[in-house]
């Protein structure tokens, strides 16, 4: 009898161990590129972690295949991670980081530099400087050393519009903020509300604010505000909020009014503009907008919807871009990893993905013709050739502010657009708390 109990106990323990083992492990993907012969004696395996899955994973794999053609003896092992920052932090603490990884924020990169986990990529400095504008190089540099190159970018300084709504109103995409406000009145008179705001998702409001702010106050102030070196009660902030209120306060001109906008989430705000007849004429959001309705909307690019760069405010910043990017960093220094990093800095590597779509490269030497359609060409070129590029300020702020309180405060501002000073002081008090805690 007791023997049997032991057997049961053993079986249970075994079952548990199996379950536990089954939980671990992930999907490894080995690149098996066609082997073209090139002059290279670099050998080895490079492990690479990034967030890309699905079609994006296939695209990065295509890039690795291109790499394999040049370096037939190097194999890239790609692994996707839902949250690369978290996975890699754990891997670094466990002493087993990947050779190369793509991180989705420069702050994360800086954190790893502070932990001495990253190897500088100064060997690729000349390639990076030749292919990227000064801002992109600067964001990859920490303490005077180059640590990262931006392989994939996101442009959040775009405005998407319904072509029919603009045609009905007889307006052209504006290049200046004041024209945009005037055109919006005309669009409203034509019978379609001008703006669609996804106010239920607070980040859409922070993006609108940031685009106005960087143009009106300039990049220096933008950096200071992002670091909270100037308070949110600064006159530059109230000025930008006042400008923003010209949109949020034009309640009749917002699809659903401001109370309706507060319950509209981002995908619905896109649908408002991409449907026919449209519920609103334009939406302020980044290059990922068409992807949101892909497969649901029958709207065609150019004929049904189109895009224009976020207009200049007061004549300034028509070619500024606020956005994001995935930065490639190196955790282990070996010839194979160096070869891959150097390769990813080339326009050639970026063009492989560009041709496949769904991608904007910050690399300014990527041929415009590499992009599959005119719309991607517009947004991607604006990103690579931006005279000033800045990261989304709310992504740089501590999460309690940039991912929470700032949302709520701007949503309250959408509700009562006349309360500029109250909004500014609320933002400041929330920012103070968040920056102090971080």
């Amino acid at each position, binding site marked *: *009898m*007791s023997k049997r*109990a*032991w057997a*049961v*106990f053993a079986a*249970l*323990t075994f079952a*548990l161990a199996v379950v536990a083992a089954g939980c671990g492990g992930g999907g490894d993907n080995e690149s098996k590129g066609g082997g073209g012969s090139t002059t290279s004696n670099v050998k080895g395996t490079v492990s690479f972690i990034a967030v890309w899955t699905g079609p994006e994973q296939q695209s990065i794999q295509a890039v690795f295949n291109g790499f394999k053609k040049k370096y037939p003896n190097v194999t890239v092992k790609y692994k996707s991670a839902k949250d690369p920052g978290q996975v890699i932090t754990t891997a670094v603490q466990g002493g087993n980081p990947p050779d190369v990884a793509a991180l989705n924020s420069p702050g994360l990169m800086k954190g790893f530099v502070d932990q001495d986990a990253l190897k500088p990529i100064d060997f690729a400095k000349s390639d990076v400087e030749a292919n990227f504008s000064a801002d992109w190089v600067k964001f990859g540099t920490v303490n005077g050393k180059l640590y990262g190159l931006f392989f994939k970018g996101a442009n959040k300084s775009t405005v998407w519009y319904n072509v029919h709504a603009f*045609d*009905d*109103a*007889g*307006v052209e995409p504006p290049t200046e903020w004041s024209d945009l406000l005037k055109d919006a*009145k*005309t669009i*409203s*008179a*034509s*019978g*379609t509300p001008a703006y669609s705001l996804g*106010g*239920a*998702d*607070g980040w859409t409001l922070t993006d609108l604010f940031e685009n106005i702010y960087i143009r009106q106050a300039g990049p220096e102030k933008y950096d200071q505000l992002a670091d909270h070196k100037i308070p949110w009660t600064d006159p530059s902030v109230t000025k930008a909020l006042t400008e923003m209120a010209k949109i949020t306060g034009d309640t*009749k001109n917002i699809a*659903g009014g401001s*109370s*309706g906008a*507060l*319950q509209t*989430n981002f995908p619905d705000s896109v649908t408002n503009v991409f449907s026919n*007849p449209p519920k609103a004429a334009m939406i302020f959001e980044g290059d990922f907008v068409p992807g949101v309705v892909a497969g649901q909307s029958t709207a065609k690019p150019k004929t049904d919807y189109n895009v224009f760069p976020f207009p200049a405010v007061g004549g300034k910043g028509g070619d500024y871009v606020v956005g994001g990017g995935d930065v490639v960093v190196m955790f282990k220094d070996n010839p194979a990893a160096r070869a891959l990093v150097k390769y990813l800095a080339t326009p050639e590597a970026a063009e492989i993905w560009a041709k496949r779509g769904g991608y904007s490269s910050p690399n300014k030497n990527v041929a415009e013709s590499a992009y599959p359609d005119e719309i991607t060409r517009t947004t991607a070129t604006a990103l690579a050739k931006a005279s000033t590029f800045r990261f989304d300020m709310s992504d740089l702020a*501590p*999460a*309690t502010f940039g*991912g*929470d309180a700032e*949302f*709520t405060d701007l*949503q309250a501002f959408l509700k009562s657009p006349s309360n500029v000073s109250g909004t500014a002081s609320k933002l400041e008090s929330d920012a103070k708390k968040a920056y102090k*805690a971080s």
Partner: protein
Amino acid sequence: MTSTSVRAEFPDPVRTPPAPRPVSRARSLLLPASFLGPAAVLLIVWMIYPALRTVARSFWNDRGNKFVWFQNYDRLFSDSVIHTAIKNNVIWIAVAPLTVTLLGLVLAVLIERIAWQSALKVILFMPLAISLFAVGVIWRIMYLQEPDKGAINAGLNAIHDVVKEPGVLPRAEPSSPAVNSRFVYTKQLGSGGTALLGLTAISPQNVPSDAEQAETPQSKQGAITGVVWRDFSPGGGKPGVVEKGELGIPGVTVSLLKDGKKTDSTTTDTKGAFTFDGVSGSGYQAQIAPATFAQPWGGVQWLGSKLITPAMIIAFLWTAVGFAMVVIGAGLSAIPRDVLEAARTDGATEFQVFRRVTVPLLMPVLTVVFVTQMIGVLKIFDIIYAIAPGSVQNDATTLAFEMWKRSFLGANAFGFGAAIASFLMLLFVPFLIYQVRSQRRNN
């Protein structure tokens, strides 16, 4: 054993139990230990240790490198969002479990008396088969404000439209200051006067298909003439002037006012033109009937900050009532019928039977349902996550939701999150004690 086989051949009339085998003390402990062991290990590793660790963690700062005594609890009681969370938890606890139990009871008693009761039970029980998160997604869509999206407002809208029909041009606005906000042509008119009632903010789709090019009205003796038209051409056009390409709006009711009182009314033709004949003297005004611009019903703002908690409670009831009904129904079928019969024979009305006999006999089951719901409601999370739009999350929040948000949603305030979790645990204690006690009593 040999002795038993011998006994089997010559069976005793009275069976004697086999002599107990002498076992060592250690061995006698081994058997229960091996049964309890796995469960105990699981319990300690995944329940007791994490719970204790959470309580301990709540006395450390967010990064976990500094002991801060009760600072996190201080934050807990000074944070206005946490106050809302506590308030919402109180509303949930006060309303949901009681309603669930009562509705479950009523349904269970009623359903026993009808045909097809199993089918109906299955239908009412079905929502429980859906995860609470999916329930949230379903109700979120049903609650959408715009009547053409949200099912509930669409239903209410159908009723509303019967009562009060929306105007044909709800969004339209006067195109120039010559027409005021009440859609009155501001100029005083007399015999031979013309009224230019220009409107904007009408989408081309909303202009009736028989509309024709508008014309500037001609002055006519003994009459007031005018036009109602879509005063917009691409680029804006000249407000207040009839231009080429601007269509008249047919079928609009126009009233003639004298000293603010309606004296006549007419309807526009396909060119948007109208004429009031038999006018003498002056002091007339023309107005487009306000009914034309009656706003369509906007819908109830279920997902706004005021109604969000009741809306979520309703969604919760939808899933929980079926469960309560089935459990109470099972209790109901266990009640001895003769007690009910006896009461009826003694002349009790059905309601008296229900109140004096059924409910008291069901009390143990009812309390079980009530307490389970209490516990379920205290930890309510998924419904909030799925139903509340981002802009009202801070109005809809509960402690369980805040615990998750503060700890994991980027903020990584684990010390604070642990404090919320510990506080929540404290709130659970009375229910747990009650549950354990009543179980003991039953045994």
